[in-house]
């Protein structure tokens, strides 16, 4: 396999996302990079992967191009099963979703995410400094998908000790069995993919841990760009750069119009 020399930051995220997904599983996908990652996985190692969209489409072949909304007409053409939001979330709550991709404006060391507001909480909830769109389906996926994969651009301002608001609960305060005690289902955050590397959550403490560094990054450079102390896996490795074939598939087959994966060279 030839290594790509001109892959972009988004392309390595997509490749990482694809590799984490397993064949023949159901993945609850949002618009954007998660969708590109799921399609790349289908074209490479996971032809039996089944995408589910929260507006109600289950298992569409996505032959009419990339959807620009999770309720896009393109997600319904050729789908195996079609309902609405209650249908999609009931499937998830029941345990049909093995993986879910979620994101947010802020993440903490336990994989809790914020997509609601910035500012003091609870004082300024009703008049926040910055109002974000809100949960959408993220908090439902966080509560009920079996394992969640978080995608967050890596920036010191986004990786914080304390969040303004916990929209999508991850491992909560990290205490053993915290999710179970709160009544939640699923194993919670499984991996975090950022612009700098891939992270998991250490089994005992449920704290975010560096697993792989992306090319050009080190444990130190990643820690320097993180607002809390990261754990480091005993065998941190460098994540292999995307191959020319993976990059070709993204550019020519999955997202030929550059709808989500921008064409700026790294």
């Amino acid at each position, binding site marked *: 396999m030839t290594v790509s020399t001109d892959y972009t930051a988004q392309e390595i995220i997509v490749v990482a996302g694809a590799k984490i997904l397993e064949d023949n599983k159901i993945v609850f996908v949002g618009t954007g990079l998660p969708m590109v990652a799921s399609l790349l996985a289908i074209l490479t190692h996971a032809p039996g992967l089944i995408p589910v969209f929260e507006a109600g489409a289950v298992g569409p072949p996505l032959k009419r191009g990339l959807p620009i909304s999770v309720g896009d*007409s393109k997600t319904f053409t050729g789908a195996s099963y*079609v309902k609405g939001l209650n249908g999609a979330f009931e499937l998830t709550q029941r345990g049909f979703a093995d993986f879910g991709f979620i994101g947010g404006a802020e993440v903490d060391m336990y994989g809790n995410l914020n997509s*609601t507001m910035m500012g003091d909480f*609870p004082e300024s909830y*009703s008049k926040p400094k910055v109002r974000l769109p809100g949960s959408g389906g993220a908090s439902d996926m966080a509560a009920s998908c079996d394992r969640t994969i978080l995608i967050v651009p890596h920036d010191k301002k986004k990786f914080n000790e304390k969040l303004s608001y916990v*929209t999508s609960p991850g491992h*909560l305060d990290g205490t053993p069995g915290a999710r179970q005690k709160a009544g939640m289902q699923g194993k919670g955050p499984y991996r975090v993919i950022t612009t700098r590397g891939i992270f998991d959550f250490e089994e005992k403490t449920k704290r975010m841990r560096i697993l792989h560094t992306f090319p050009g990054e080190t444990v130190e450079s990643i820690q320097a760009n993180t607002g809390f102390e990261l754990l480091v896996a005993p065998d941190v490795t460098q994540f292999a750069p995307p191959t020319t074939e993976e990059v070709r598939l993204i550019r020519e087959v999955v997202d030929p119009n550059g709808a989500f994966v921008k064409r700026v060279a790294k």
Partner: protein
Amino acid sequence: METNAKMFWTGLSPDEAREALVNKDKSKKDKRMTLKEAVSRFVKPGDNVGIGGFVDIRQPVAICHEMIRQGFKDLTLSFQSAGMAPELLGGAMLVRPDHCSIKRIELAYWAHEAFGLSPTWRYLAERGMIEFEDWSNYNMSARFKAGAMGLPFIPTRSPLGGDIKNTSRTKIIDCPFTGRPIALLPASNPNVGLIHVQAADMYGNCIIRGTDATCAEIAMASAHTIVTCEQLVSHELITSNPKDVMIPFPAVDAVVHVPFGAYPGACRRHYYFNGDAIRGFLALIAPMVKGGSADALKAWYDENIFGVESFEDYIEKFPTKKLLADQLAENYNCERLA
């Protein structure tokens, strides 16, 4: 039991919702009327309004235009994820607060996915101009479902953990059967539901294509429902496969034939998004978040809503080529013989 915000009903209470249906004329009568008549008869000051569709798909855009023309007062808007409907209603409040006002919003998400954030949401929230209550997509959908089922609440697995339970009327109880914590959400029974569908007959039977969103639940939970449709068809055609009927006629009070009724959003089998129009509208409001002038937005409302008689007049302002292109794009999305 963990007590959160004090319980109160922001639409109809479950008893009031039941009473409203008991007293309603449920006969199979011709409910066709103009948008003007539908809005003036069924949208009242102080109403809780359930908004159908999902983000910029099948939003009741034409109904919102008419509501803005007529003016509205102290509304509560209830929806899961919405884009153009609250953007238009909220934008009207920015330019004509004397004529259009929203008191409260119960929501999961207000933005436009790939087309951008909502500047109106930021403007109203960051200035403390409205009350709001955050939920999730499933929470709002389940709340409408509880309303549609005639129940006062519904148990769900979210919000548990996190802050949504702390800023909403969620109650967490220990499940009486498993002993584990479970969330209880209050039903949502709007005074009026606003729904745009692909096809309806004159009685209000509706067929929906693509995402069902939460439209059937909203229609069944609301005391009244206004339906706009792309295609007005015969009763015989709509019931040729009765299981296709997503919303049954007794739940509907007004049927209005409005082609392009969700435009510039998308409507499966009819037209794809006009992303330029959505982005263009947002661009008029975005500078106002940072204190910019409202002149451009005012001019937009004057030209496209206050300055015209009907939604058809607004649609007429788009170049025919663009309307055809958006129809063609949708034909490609779901290729079929006519």
